[in-house]
């Protein structure tokens, strides 16, 4: 530092020392070890239930149902990560899902045909309803975010108030009665045999995924070369590419092994004149259900926001040190407000999945979602101290929690028993994580 005016030497280009240990080899691939560990844990959970159930658990039907059940919570958990990372909490998500689900139901059974003059044949009714729901979510989230960020009421209090009062609004909206009978197109959002993208599209999606993995790896390498940064060893790049593509193809094949139920297939075949039933019945793969595709899209967008955009950078920096973010000239209040707007939008998407699955809305749609969502985020590595958490982690967390619940119910454990296990797993997961971090630092 004796002469700051010197031109910069190409310093800091020191290659990491050659390592031959397994830990060193893994380090060279630069895989996120936490995420890898969670994936492993998820695999162990699924495998254990499979063995306990004598091989019945690990069937495409079960796995697809599990994924659909996890998707609503997982969608919201991606946003909860950003809220917790920026040292806030959102307890109102369950109630918000409830009120938006009821809004969808009322829109399509009552308001649209009777007030807005949009009968069952009105084009894109489902999309209009979805848009209105997302708008409502953004509005409520924005209002809560405004009170938190600009007036300075703690988020715990604001969203606790939201939890109570928004759930009350559901009751007033519906006069205490459940509503059913959604638009048939809207129902597809909830999954099921018809609410899936089908075999061909699933394979195309898998192909797109593989291409994306390869392009990302190549692009990363190109960027590093452009700035003369140390490159990952070629074997690691190839291995990541091959493993990634293999995983994508395996998941797609698994989803396509899930077939339409014979009864439904026969009914549709008769309606649409597909001809005589082939030998051994109809073999129509369902492929990925729409909720999973939605979740995939939400995860990609949220991960992109969190890691590739200024907004995400500011959320993390604020979580790490609010003063530093403020002194760096970041508009921290606006950033916090935006995290809550995002939460509202994600709640609207989750509400669409939940109400579409029910083909309507009851008073308690979304009940206790806040707890599952927070649990998913925390099991996925989000720290309540702020500044730490990842979007893919939270999605995996949602899947871990849902696999436990689904697996236990598959084994005949009742709902209170599932809750006991879920609670214990939550504490163990966080305890283990805390221990690891303390040792690591």
């Amino acid at each position, binding site marked *: *530092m004796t002469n700051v005016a010197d031109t910069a030497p190409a310093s*800091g280009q020191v290659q990491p020392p050659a390592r031959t240990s397994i830990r060193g080899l893994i380090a060279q691939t630069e895989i996120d070890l936490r995420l890898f560990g969670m994936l492993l844990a998820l695999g162990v959970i699924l495998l254990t239930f499979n063995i306990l159930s004598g091989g019945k658990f690990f069937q495409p039907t079960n796995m697809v149902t599990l994924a659909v059940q996890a998707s609503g919570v997982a969608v919201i958990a991606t946003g909860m990560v950003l809220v917790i990372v920026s040292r806030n909490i959102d307890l109102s998500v369950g109630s918000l899902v409830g009120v938006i689900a009821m809004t969808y139901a009322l829109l399509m059974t009552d308001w649209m045909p009777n007030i807005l003059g949009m009968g069952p044949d009105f084009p894109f009714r489902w999309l209009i309803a979805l848009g209105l729901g997302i708008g409502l979510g953004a509005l409520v989230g924005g209002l809560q975010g405004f009170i938190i960020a600009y007036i300075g009421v703690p988020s715990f209090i604001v969203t606790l108030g939201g939890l109570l009062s928004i759930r009350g609004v559901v009751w007033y909206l519906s006069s205490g009665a459940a509503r059913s009978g959604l638009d048939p197109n809207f129902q597809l959002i909830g999954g099921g045999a018809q609410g899936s993208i089908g075999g061909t599209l699933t394979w195309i999606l898998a192909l797109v995924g593989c291409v994306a993995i390869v392009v990302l790896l190549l692009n990363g390498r190109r960027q590093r070369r452009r*700035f003369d940064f140390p490159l990952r060893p070629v074997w690691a790049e190839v291995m990541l590419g091959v493993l990634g593509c293999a995983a994508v193809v395996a998941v797609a094949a698994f989803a396509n092994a899930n077939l339409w139920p014979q009864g439904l297939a026969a009914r549709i075949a008769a309606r649409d004149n597909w001809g005589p039933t082939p030998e051994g019945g109809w073999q129509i793969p369902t492929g990925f259900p729409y909720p999973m595709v939605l979740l995939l899209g939400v995860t990609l967008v949220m991960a992109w926001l969190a890691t590739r955009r200024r907004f995400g950078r500011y959320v993390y920096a604020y979580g*790490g040190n609010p003063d530093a973010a403020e002194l760096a*000239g970041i508009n921290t209040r606006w950033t916090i407000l935006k995290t809550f707007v995002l939460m509202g939008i994600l709640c609207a998407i989750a509400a669409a999945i939940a109400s579409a699955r029910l083909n309507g809305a009851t008073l308690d749609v979304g009940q206790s979602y806040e707890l599952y969502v927070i649990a998913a985020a925390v099991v996925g590595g989000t720290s309540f101290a702020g*500044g730490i958490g990842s979007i893919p982690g939270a999605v995996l967390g949602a899947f871990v929690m849902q696999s436990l619940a689904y697996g236990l119910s598959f084994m005949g454990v009742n709902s209170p028993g599932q809750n006991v296990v879920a609670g214990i797993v939550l504490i163990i997961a966080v305890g283990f994580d805390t221990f690891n971090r303390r040792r690591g630092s």
Partner: protein
Amino acid sequence: MTVAERTPLVEMQHINVAFGGVHAVQDATIDLHAGEVIGLVGGNGAGKSTLMRVLSGAHPADSGSILIDGKPVSIKSPRDAKAYNIETIYQTLALADNVDAPANLFLGREKTTRLGSLDDSAMEAETRKVMGRLNPNFTRFKMPVKSLSGGQRQAVAIARAVYFNARIMIMDEPTAALGPAETAQVRNLVRQLKDEGIGIFLISHDIHDVFDLSDRISVMYHGEIVGTVNKDEVTTDEVLGMIILGKPPTEVTETELAALHA
């Protein structure tokens, strides 16, 4: 030096800041020329940091005016201050511990691609360049700054101030957490920035640092500026007297001086 005849780079006039009923800064007036180092000294709670936080936009003044190049300006936020090329190295360093050095260096002023996404590679490349000058041994560009040593963290904070073409730099206790070698580095840096024509406010408890580096010394006492003196015209004892007694050397009586030395 003939600096007094030129338009000062910064003039802060009649600045007042109150926290509740406490007057943290009272009617403070201070100026700074290009290529000049002003040592700002005073006891704990004398108002040095608060006065500088006004200039860096961290805490707007209740009243008073700020002039840059002779023109009145309004600094209401850190963003405003940065727009006038005022960079600050805070005593706390103000680093986001959970993100890496490039993210901290560019915090609030990220480099982006044409589509508005973060250009992390470009930011890392720039960080490598500037850190190559400040701390050539620094290699942990991908680690959260939490895992860095005190000196490395200080280097990141300094790099952030140096990188963005500061004209005015505020350094709040820049050597307080450093070892002897690193302190020497920071001293060299101050001299060099001064040679480049940057005006520097240096807050320090270390009277030797201040005498070594400053051109003029401003002493604060209970929120007021006791006086600003040319370094060459005073002794360390006289400055210490100002810090402790809150009076210019000319007003200090023999008995007070005697009491001080007793």
